[in-house]
């Protein structure tokens, strides 16, 4: 059952990445590109950890990957909010 849920989370994350990729293509707003990249990393991380130890992730170092994904989101929001010259589409 754990594997099924891990697979669903992985596919969901990759699907979200594709949605954001399309938003980026339509709007050319880098904000969406960072989101797409973040969820792509998250999805691959889920896949990797599910393949190796059923989502249990032995090493805490795995989670540096997750920190990178969150960092991209933080950067996307900060970049959007700090220079206020561009309008959101």
């Amino acid at each position, binding site marked *: *059952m*754990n594997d099924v*849920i*891990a697979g*669903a*989370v992985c596919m*969901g*994350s990759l*699907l*979200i990445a594709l*949605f*954001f990729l399309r938003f980026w293509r339509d709007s050319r707003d880098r904000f969406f590109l960072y*989101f797409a990249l973040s969820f792509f990393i998250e999805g691959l991380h*889920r896949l990797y950890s599910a393949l190796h130890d*059923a*989502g*249990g992730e032995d090493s*805490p*170092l795995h*989670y*540096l990957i*997750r*920190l990178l994904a*969150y*960092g991209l*989101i*933080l950067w996307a*929001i*900060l970049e*959007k*909010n700090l220079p206020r010259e561009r309008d*959101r589409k």
Partner: protein
Amino acid sequence: MAVTIYILCILTSLACTWLLFGSYRRTRYRLLFWSGACFAVMTLNNLFLLLDKIVFPSIDFLPARLISALVATLLLLYGLIYEKE
């Protein structure tokens, strides 16, 4: 080392939640609300991770962690699909 990484995971996801809801309050852009909701549950997911690995190593939190990750993903997916209509 491990504790630092787990706590950083909680703090960064909490910061994402905070900033996303803050942006939503300012812009009323609905997708930001769903992204914020996603990261709120993701923060819970990272909290479960800390409880699982450090606080209660004898209790298996894996189902709770996986289900919370799934809920977080579904929240944002719902938002993305709903907003496209």
